[in-house]
């Protein structure tokens, strides 16, 4: 496993899109402490899959005939990785990672049945 550069994560495009998306969704700035907590969760997920946030998002997308689409395979693999992460980190942490992907345009839903 490579060491993930936390500062690089925090300033990555995908993280920026996520945090701006959250602020737009809820109509208010994210409090600093909550923001730190979210980023720490994302750091741990990225370490667990050994990828940067931009790589995680890119893996869920593909470009076909010049049109950007969601990659079924990439999305499924990352959804499974999040499910696995949930086993150790808990539901709230897993949903934080799902939120990261959702606000980056990757359609994901979680199973309520498994709660």
């Amino acid at each position: 496993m490579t060491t993930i550069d936390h500062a690089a994560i925090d300033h990555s495009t995908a993280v920026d899109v996520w945090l701006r998306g959250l602020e737009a969704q809820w109509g208010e700035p994210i409090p600093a402490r909550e923001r730190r907590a979210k980023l720490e969760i994302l750091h741990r997920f990225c370490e667990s899959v050994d990828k940067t946030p931009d790589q995680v998002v890119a893996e869920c997308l593909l470009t076909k005939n010049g049109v950007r689409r969601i990659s079924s395979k990439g999305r499924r693999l990352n959804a499974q990785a999040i499910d696995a992460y949930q086993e150790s980190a808990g539901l709230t942490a897993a949903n934080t990672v799902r939120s990261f992907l959702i606000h980056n345009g990757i359609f994901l839903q979680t199973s309520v049945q498994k709660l």
Partner: protein
Amino acid sequence: VEFFQVLGRRRSIRYFQPWRPVEREKIQKILEAARIASCAVNASYLRGVVVNRDDLPTETLDRLKTPPAATNYDLAPTYIFFYGDTRTVAEKRGAPLRELVDVGALNPSHGWSHKFVDELIFPQILEPMTRTPERLIRAVAIDCGVAMCQALLTAYELGLGACFSSFNGDVVKEALGIPDHWLQMYALLLGYSAESWEAGGQRPRPPLEDLFCEGRYGEPFRRDPAVVAELEAVGMLQTPAPLPWRKAEVRALARMLGLPE
């Protein structure tokens, strides 16, 4: 609830109380409403299978969901998988129309008779339609939509929430033994709403004038403000979404149900 209020309060509900089942008598009332819906040539195309979520094997439940509706399927306790029977007109050979003649719904005053049904309507119009997929599917889909809408509105009359949803037809067909001649429509997901009945307000729709014409194409049907005010007074036209507290409601629902934000 008054009819106009039922129309006005209807929203596609996507947050159900997953723990609260729907009473069987309410399901029957919903089906009864669908059964008596208007249908061309008295065909009654609509068919349906009622399934309670918790009676389905987990693997089947996981496979039947389409991605955009997965959470809806998890939350709603009851589904009605709706189909259109593509054989019914061919099989009944005009009998439902003859019934309408017999009961005085279709009358000689309007040119109707058994002979007209037997010698013209069925052999020259209906039977050829059943051999033309484009025409048959259009007829089936339109009438199923009408009947499904009555089912939907009845759900709200009974205090339930509901949402139409797509589903994985192959999985449901195999799991429920659906015959080949049943044409897939939508599933009606039913349950008690976890959202407030306002569900954030009446959904945005295009202006009336953009949708409907008067006299000829391109001449908008002008909206009378007095009629709008009347419909607002009886609850059909309501405060449009988003209501100011909607985001807080959505956040609270997500947290209560363990969903992402």
